[in-house]
């Protein structure tokens, strides 16, 4: 008897339907008829409209929303639980921006390690595999007992820089010491110089004093970070770079959260341009911020899904960007 057919099913939560559609177009697979909704009492439920028995299911949901990040999280777990109940063979959570990734350590007494909790909750809900992108700390992979594919936006960023900028007068800058490794790797691959901004941080989301290490005079500076939240760091970094004689400053980040008044800050800042991926929905912010530019990550996610489904190696994607 031949093995039963094992098809891909793509599902989307409500957090970032646009990205799901892009992935679905790239893979040429429609989104499955599974709909998450809320009752009036705000409990989440999901209507499963087609069979997923013995299928290889991918649930696309990103961590976003200042008011409803927890709704989307519950939604993802409800969907995965429903899929498990309906005998899906393998459930893969595709989470471009992993929620609660920054709460990954017990940095003060009685602080919750929420990233670990989320990892446990996702596994409890029935997730067998996780695809994510540029985890804030790659150690979060260790919080899971299931395989985690942490993809990198780096190849896409490299391509973007190569296409747009002349590498002769380029300096890659890390806005904090934590990102030095990421920035050094990009600078090596582009064969350009890199600089570092050291910041003394008193509290989260608050930046106090910054010191530039390296020379940026008359150069185009590219600030690279994994996420831009309130953008305080980026704006201050841009100030420092401009004060030190930079020609212009561009910021490239993977996850553009842009919470609270980040967009206004960016508009007023001395940043020439801010580039981020569409790991989170940004359509309204694009309209409000003329400096914002988007790199599409759907090809990399789609290719990762395709490779995972066919049992091919995903590590190719760490260094190469599919188009």
């Amino acid at each position, binding site marked *: 008897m031949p093995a039963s057919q094992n098809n891909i099913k793509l599902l989307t939560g409500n957090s970032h339907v646009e990205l799901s559609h892009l992935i679905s177009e790239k893979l040429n697979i429609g*989104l499955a008829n599974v709909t998450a909704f809320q009752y009036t009492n705000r409990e989440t439920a999901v*209507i*499963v409209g087609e069979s997923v028995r013995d299928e290889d299911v991918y649930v696309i949901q990103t961590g976003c929303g200042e008011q*409803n*990040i927890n709704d989307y999280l519950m939604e993802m777990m409800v969907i995965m*639980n429903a899929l498990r109940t309906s005998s899906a063979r393998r459930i893969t959570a595709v989470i471009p921006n992993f929620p609660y990734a920054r709460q990954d350590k017990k940095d003060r*007494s009685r602080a*919750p390690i929420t990233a670990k909790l989320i990892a446990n909750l996702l596994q409890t809900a029935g997730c067998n595999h996780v695809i994510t992108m540029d985890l804030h700390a790659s150690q979060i992979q260790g919080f899971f007992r299931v395989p985690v594919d942490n993809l990198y936006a780096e190849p896409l960023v490299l391509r973007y820089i190569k296409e747009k900028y002349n590498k002769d007068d380029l300096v890659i800058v890390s806005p904090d010491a934590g990102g030095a490794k990421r920035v050094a790797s990009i600078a090596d691959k582009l064969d350009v110089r890199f600089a570092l901004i050291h910041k003394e941080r008193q509290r989260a989301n608050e930046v106090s004093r910054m010191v530039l290490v390296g020379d940026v005079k008359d150069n185009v500076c590219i600030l690279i970070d994994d996420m831009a939240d309130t953008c305080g760091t980026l704006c201050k970094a841009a100030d420092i770079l401009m004060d030190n004689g930079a020609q212009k400053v561009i910021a490239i980040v993977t996850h553009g959260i842009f919470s609270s008044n980040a967009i206004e800050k960016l508009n007023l800042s001395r940043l020439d341009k801010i580039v981020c991926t569409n790991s989170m929905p940004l359509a309204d912010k694009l309209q409000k911020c003329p400096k914002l530019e988007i790199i599409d990550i759907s090809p990399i996610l789609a290719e990762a899904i395709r490779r995972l489904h066919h049992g091919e190696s995903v590590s190719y994607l760490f260094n190469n960007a599919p188009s």
Partner: protein
Amino acid sequence: MRNLVVLGGTSHPDLTKSICRILTTEESDVNIGRFSNGETSIEIQGSVRDKDVFIIQSGSGHINDNFVQLLIMIAACKTASARRVTAVLPLFPYSRQPDVPHAAVATGAPSITTKKDTYTYESAPSTPRPWTKSGFDFGTPPPFNLGVNSSSGIGAAGHILPKSFRAKQDKPVERSGERAAERASERISERSTERNSERSTERLVEKSEKSCDLAKPNDSGYKKWISQNGTLIANLLMTAGADRCVTMDLHDPQFQGFFNIPVDNLYSKPLLKHYIIDYIPNYQQCVIVSPDSGGAKRATSIADAIGCQFALIHKERRAKANSSGPPSAPGPLGTRSAGGFSSTSSVNNPNGHQLVATTMLVGDVRDRVCVLVDDLVDTSYTITRAAKLLKDQGALYVYALVTHGVFSGDAINRIAKSSIDKLITTNSTPQKTHSEMLGDKLVVIDVSRVLAEAIRRIHNGESVSMLFDHGW
């Protein structure tokens, strides 16, 4: 009390305060907030090392937010070396996951939140459904504009929900589900606004060709179903590290079986019983009524305990074949059947046959005081419909006794205009705004004493079962 720590979530701070006062203990300091990106942040101020921690969080308000908050607090206490963490959930979230729908899009909560001037309390069971366009006019958003909606994330609470639904409208693959939801909404609007009934019937007929019925197998032969998340919630609580759960009047007693940890299910029955005995004049003469067959057992046990009569309202929805004509005018027909009074209304099903909805009262309530007993009122459709049927059958006065008053959507407005003369509920969920809106019509019973006593007994290792019968 030594080594006892009581923490409260943001869902119901008044209840936490009240419980702490009764326990004569200080509520421990927790800073609950949000990071700028929306993630929940928890800071537990006092030490919990080797303490017996109780975390009080009700399943009300922004349920998912509150639930995640609870999970994070449990995990934080566990990582901070708490000896035992007990989740106290006066109203258990997701406990009333509706049944797998047998004839409708969904059972559960319909979603009209707009305030209406008139309500009809037809005796036809409604067809509650997911978010539909009826309450909100979305216009026709162009495809792929969802980012606008979902990323902004800020706004009034009421805007969050339609936003998520709006997102769905663009998904072509889900069109059939949406259509079904639309159709269901029209079914409702047909019933509820009689003026428009003709027009919506026409629309129904128009839609009938392209609609696919949820109850019917679709092209692939797959029957749509709606997830039930009871086990998920239980598993998540255990994963977060809860060692014990205390809750009240679980909708399904089987819920306890979903857990591998002890679950103490307290009962509000003694409190409700005391209310009947203390406040209802001539309570021996009243009739206890269950608004649906599912609650019959709960209602009979109260009727037995105080020694009064019992009646039952039964609703059913049956598809009657071979009636392809236009539907008869919706509305109660008040026929007298063998079993008792029943009222029927029929709704045209796009598949050509009629869906006959019957609500039947079993028992006699003429010239009697009726006490409706239910465990949870959400949209209030069931209970207001039941109250109307009772008044139609000659009931003098209708009390409604409900353990958990969720009152989502426009439930409060419905109740205000309904035949319910007095609504009694508990403060397992915050009732402040509700009682402001309903005034004297709403009586709130305090459950903090029962919960506090349960906490005290659990902490001291005493038996909790005594609370089941006597209350506190």
